[in-house]
């Protein structure tokens, strides 16, 4: 055994109140094993990690109870069990970075922008070995970069972080953490902010390094697919407590605790199974396409120089053909930067297309002036990804819903419009009383539902859903997806569902289009595209998705 946490409690002072972030948890990690801590946001898993590292600010946090016992390896070699919570600050500094290392979720901001990559790795080395001379430190830093498979490490070592991509920065973080050969690596959602292909590589790298160095990993995540790649044992956390802790296989197939069962049931793979029942799962086939797109392009000019001449074009969307029939859901999948968000907004002419034709319900809308476009705006709507910025914080829900109705002339007077608004709220599983509240009083999931309500209130035929569930927890996501399917059935809606999450695609959509670098590389019925992909990019993409072995 390497680490044993015993009844750990961490209390935080937030705005004058005491929050029991970690409320009595116990777990252990053996040498050489990977242990996962799973939970949704607010469960306390990050605070647990920070407690082990003792990185919480001392004046707002305290540990009223518990022990964190770690088998500390002295520089000379002998081992000693210590309670991290009782150590002096000097000894904690000796452990941090050298025996227990940590990597974080946001690679873009975790490196100091004013120092080179090499400087930062060398600093880690010199902190724990002040005798180390410059040349040797540099050698070891280059070796560390090489180990995490950064090409041309001898040159890259002098680069500043802003020259590296997100994936590369995360590799540098790993190199920095591993340079001192720690016994335990704590990884707090290290791949959540990365593309799925990059994620696959990083996970593989971590497993590789672990095997080579015999290191233990405490891996924190909310994604069961990732857990399946990395660990055999896991613990599920909720509201500061561990509700269930067992092997992966047991939890996936025989969850005991109601919360765990709820979580497992909400997995997209499991949702897919339950989809077969009920007419809501089926989208009707055939009929005239509601939306037809031909040769759509959106190019942004790149301007440089004093006179701002256009030197190049960014081809965000490069000649896309699409069609969606009434009542069908088309999923648009791709990694970050592929142009799917731009395409979604271009369809609604929130971004002006540079070329191509958009036809809606038989009429060409791509060239229309603003005034003539207005009636179409009623029938085509959009819901956004970010629950924070998608609602105007100054307006009540009522104003937000009623104003569009007024502009389009729906409803005879305000009372009628209020009634319609209330009905719409009920349809998205919210209460009519919520009409008079402000957005800041709702949770993320509720705000997304309000966004959908705003789209629904005009009775549209077509809605673009731009990564609507990407910012939500798994269980909330499941509810929202089920709600969307129900609405689609009730209202015969056509949806363009933009996402990067393949699991969701398989559950929700009838057809799938895969997008890469502004182009659609593959398109077809979802079952076919996901089961038997033809295009090499699609194959790579699907292979990289971490699957839950159910």
């Amino acid at each position, binding site marked *: 055994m390497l680490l044993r946490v015993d009844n750990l409690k961490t209390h935080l002072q937030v705005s004058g109140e005491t929050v029991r972030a970690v409320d009595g948890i116990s777990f252990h990690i053996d040498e050489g094993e990977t242990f996962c801590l799973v939970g949704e946001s607010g469960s306390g898993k990050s605070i647990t990690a920070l407690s082990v590292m003792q990185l919480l600010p001392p004046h707002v946090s305290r540990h009223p109870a518990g022990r964190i016992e770690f088998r500390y390896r002295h520089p000379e070699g002998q081992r000693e069990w210590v309670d991290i919570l009782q150590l002096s600050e000097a000894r904690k500094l000796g452990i*941090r970075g*050298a025996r227990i*290392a940590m990597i974080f979720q*946001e690679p873009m*901001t*975790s490196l100091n*922008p004013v120092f080179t990559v090499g400087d930062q790795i060398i*600093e880690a080395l010199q902190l724990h070995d002040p005798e180390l001379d410059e040349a040797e430190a540099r050698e070891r830093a280059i070796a560390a970069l090489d180990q995490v498979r950064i090409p041309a490490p001898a040159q890259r070592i002098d680069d500043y972080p802003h020259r590296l991509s997100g994936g590369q920065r995360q590799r540098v973080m790993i190199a920095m953490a591993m340079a001192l050969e720690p016994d335990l690596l704590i990884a707090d959602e290290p791949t959540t902010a990365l593309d799925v292909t990059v994620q696959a590589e990083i996970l593989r790298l971590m497993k590789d390094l672990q095997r080579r160095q015999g290191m233990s990993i405490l891996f924190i995540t909310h994604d069961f697919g990732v857990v399946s790649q990395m660990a055999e044992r896991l613990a599920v956390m909720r509201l500061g407590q561990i509700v269930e802790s067992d092997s992966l296989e047991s939890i996936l197939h025989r969850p005991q605790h109601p919360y765990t069962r709820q979580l497992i049931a909400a997995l997209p793979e499991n949702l897919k199974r339950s989809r077969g029942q009920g007419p809501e799962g089926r989208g009707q086939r055939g009929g005239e396409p509601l939306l037809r797109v031909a040769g759509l392009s959106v190019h942004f000019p790149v301007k440089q120089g004093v006179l701002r001449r256009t030197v190049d074009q960014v081809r965000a969307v490069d000649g896309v053909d699409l069609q969606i029939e009434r009542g069908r859901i088309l999923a648009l999948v791709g990694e970050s930067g592929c142009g799917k968000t731009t395409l979604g907004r271009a369809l609604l002419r929130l971004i002006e297309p540079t070329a191509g034709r958009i036809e809606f319900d038989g009429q060409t809308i791509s060239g229309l002036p603003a005034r003539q476009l207005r009636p179409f705006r009623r029938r085509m709507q959009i819901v956004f990804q970010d629950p924070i910025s998608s609602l105007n914080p100054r307006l009540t829900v009522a104003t937000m819903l009623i104003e569009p109705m007024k502009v389009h002339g729906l409803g005879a007077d305000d009372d009628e419009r209020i009634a319609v608004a209330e009905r719409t709220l009920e349809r998205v599983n919210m209460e009519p009383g919520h009409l008079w509240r402000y957005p800041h009083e709702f949770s993320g999931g509720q705000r997304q539902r309000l966004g959908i309500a705003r789209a629904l209130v005009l009775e549209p035929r077509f809605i673009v859903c731009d990564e609507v569930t990407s910012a939500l927890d798994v269980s909330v996501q499941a509810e929202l997806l089920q709600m969307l399917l129900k609405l689609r059935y009730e209202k015969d809606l056509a949806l363009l569902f933009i996402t990067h999450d393949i699991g969701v695609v398989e559950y929700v959509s009838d057809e799938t289009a895969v997008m890469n670098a502004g182009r659609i590389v593959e398109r077809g019925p979802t079952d076919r595209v996901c089961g038997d992909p033809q295009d090499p990019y699609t194959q790579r993409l699907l292979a990289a998705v971490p699957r839950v072995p159910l």
Partner: protein
Amino acid sequence: MVPTLVGITVVVFAIMAASPGGISSQALVEGQNLEPQAKKALMEYYNRRYGLDDPPPIQYLRWLNNVSPIGFTFNEANEISGFSLLKGSDLGESFRYGRPVAGLLADRVPITLLLNLLSLPLIYVIAISIGVRAATQRGQAFDVGSSVIMLALWSVPTMLTGVLLIGFFASDQYWHWFPTAGLSEREALDMPFLPHWGSAHDVLILFAGVAGGVVLALLLSRRGGRALRSVTLALLGGWAGYLMSAQLPGADWQAAPLLLPALGAAVLGGIGLLEYPGLRDAAIASIGLVTGILAVTPLMEEAFVRGFLLDRLWHLALPVICLSYSGFAFLSRLTRSAVLENLLSDYARTARAKGAPESLVLWRHVFRNSLLPLITVAATLLPGLLMGSVIVESIFSIDGMGKLAVEAVKDRDSELVLSITLISGLLNLAGYLIADLAYALADPRVSYE
């Protein structure tokens, strides 16, 4: 940069041209008291420079041509005679001083620059030391106290400080510790540059006094406990207050012998209570220095010649304080918020996770990043400093550009006013440019296009 420069000239000229009466009106108003010949000469002068009968845009072009170092040259008959790259900038003549403006400015601008350049480092040093400490001690006594004091200091208008400083410390009514006006005494021009003591004996005594004072002070600051420090300093402060009240001429302030020692004891005692080692060491060491010098001065035998340098510094002391306090009050709050933000950043967390002690995180990582907004704000400090110099120079009778500007406005000396505004705009632009360059050097993310 260039369009902004041109824009400044347009704005400045437009103000003048738009005024009632146009360009030459002010001179003519003033010139009403002149004899006909002088008035005629003035009219000719203006006609030569601007072309009084031409429409304003042409006048502007003529003026621009005069002011810029590259341009057309004119002959006697006021026609274009050629184009020269080395014409030189003709800023006109100040009719009040009877000299070319360029000459006047060459005399005065360096003085203003001296004042400002002395203030800048002072501002930054004090602001950083207070701001960083406030950020690391967030919410505690030093932070709350310094925030309020800095906000109050920032709110005190420069004029008030200047007036109070002169009134109390540079006048005959209270303490005449500092000179009343100007940048140096007339005698100083004859003095040697460095201070000069009469005999080696004096130098030794001075050295002993200074060394003894500083060493004792540092010992007190580092080793003495809180009680010892505050009591010793309070006694010292009380005694200094008593001495100060003894120096007051006249008997009008009866309360002085009671009030001043109490004030002195409170202030110095308070310094003794500070828990900020850096600031406390510096303050107590300087108190020790002054005490040491004062203690041994009566023992010195021969005359002491101040020297040009010391004299200059003595004259500059009050004006520089007056000019910089509002700058460092503002900057210290900015430093505090920049440091706070960076202390909570992700990369600071990474540094801690590597095992870096908090002091290293602060001074190596956070400080370096916090400097960036401070450099940017230097560009905004400059206009403030230039404005402040106008007031400070007027109060302390220092012959700089600012004082010249005020007098020019009072005298309706149009050429002078225009040129000064133009030059101040140029200085500002230069400052922005330097700040931009410094930022590009400091932040590797920025590439200078």
